[in-house]
């Protein structure tokens, strides 16, 4: 039974490790220095959270946190596909950051009530730190949403693109129903997903961002033309429904983007797996 819990902890850690790795790619490259600092700190937090989840799992599976983080084959990682997508432009980075941290906040709130005290306590601690990530993401999404037409148009497209794969974050874990029965998890992933759609729709509405969310398809009412002007849906509409919808990650099915990330992320570890730092 502890294998079931360990696999869930590892999947949670994988989400945090992979999004943290993507955030860390802004170190030295962000559009301005304050954001270089912010994304580096957020990355450090996320990778720290991954390390804490791996540590809980490590005693159950008899592997060190480093072995779990860097010693597996690509198909053994269970992060959502959304986390592995390249940063793209600043708009996509912000859109994914905002969506991911909103989703993570709901997940942590549910994990805080886990019947496993060590998981409940860790989730409570992580949730307090993640508040800062959500505040950072909200600040930026609001700033761009209320800013120039060009920026707003880019953000709308990025939100639609990221939202199209957000379901992968709520794909059920392996043996999730047994973890629910034990009280280790308190809310089924699809129920969390429905809550996420509800709160995100309300938040987008508050921001005046007309992104319509439908199950399996995302449409934007307004899209940006090449000049950056917004075009109403009655003239043209954007409907983004990529094959897969970001699903499969929880079962080890990843995009080609993941393979490149994995190769870079594990390169140093593979030189000398037994090295201690």
């Amino acid at each position: 039974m502890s294998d079931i819990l360990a696999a869930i902890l590892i999947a949670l850690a994988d989400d945090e490790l992979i999004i943290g790795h993507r955030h860390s790619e802004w170190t030295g490259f962000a559009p301005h220095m304050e954001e270089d600092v912010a994304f580096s700190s957020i990355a450090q937090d996320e990778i720290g959270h991954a390390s804490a989840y791996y540590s809980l799992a490590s005693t159950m599976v008899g592997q060190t946190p480093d072995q779990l983080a860097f010693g597996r084959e690509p198909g053994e990682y269970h992060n959502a596909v959304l986390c592995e997508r390249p940063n793209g432009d600043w708009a996509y980075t912000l859109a994914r950051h905002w969506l991911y941290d909103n989703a993570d906040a709901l997940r942590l709130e549910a994990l805080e009530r886990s019947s496993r005290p060590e998981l409940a306590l860790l989730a409570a601690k992580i949730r307090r730190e993640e508040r800062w990530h959500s505040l950072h993401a909200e600040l930026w999404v609001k700033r761009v949403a209320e800013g120039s037409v060009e920026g707003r148009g880019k953000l709308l497209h990025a939100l639609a693109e990221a939202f199209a794969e957000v379901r992968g974050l709520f794909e059920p874990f392996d043996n999730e129903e047994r973890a629910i029965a034990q009280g280790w998890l308190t809310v089924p992933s699809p129920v969390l997903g429905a809550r996420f759609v509800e709160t995100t729709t309300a938040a987008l509405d508050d921001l005046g961002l007309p992104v319509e969310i439908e199950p399996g398809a995302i449409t934007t009412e307004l899209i940006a033309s090449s000049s950056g002007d917004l075009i109403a849906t009655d003239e043209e509409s954007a409907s983004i429904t990529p094959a897969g919808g970001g699903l499969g990650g929880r079962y080890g099915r990843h995009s080609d983007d993941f393979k490149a990330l994995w190769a870079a992320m594990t390169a140093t570890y593979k030189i000398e797996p037994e090295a201690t730092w």
Partner: protein
Amino acid sequence: MTTERAIWDALEKVKDPEIPAVSVVEMGMIKEVDVRGGRARVVILPTFTGCPAIAVIEQDVREAVGSVTGVEGAEVEMSYDPPWTADRITPKGRRELKAFGLAPPTGNGPVLVTSIGLPKTALCPFCGSSDTRNENPFGPTPCRALYYCSSCRNPFEQFKDV
């Protein structure tokens, strides 16, 4: 002096390597110290989960406790029960943070998770002015936010409420 008292004194000398002005005791990171027949057990509450200083602190605590007369073995544990919160920093710790040039967190009691955020005013640790503005909710370490003081025109950092 009891061995337990001696351990607390030894812990007063262990500093966070990233904030060398304040001891782990003043930071409120020591949950408990327990001595039984020469075996000492110390429970540490990490400030931030991903803090890279934690491994160093754990090592320093183990060495400090191990060197106390009467201690034959030291066990150091990490705990999130309760989660470390900024209100755990002692009044002395707050003064030391300020003297170090780091504005202390404002929280006076356990802060609700939903009310974690930037304080309305952060007092400049250099001149005491409240005419300050937040430049970035993140700083050189995950536990710090960046501010600018419009009175003395110095940038400064604040230890975040978490």
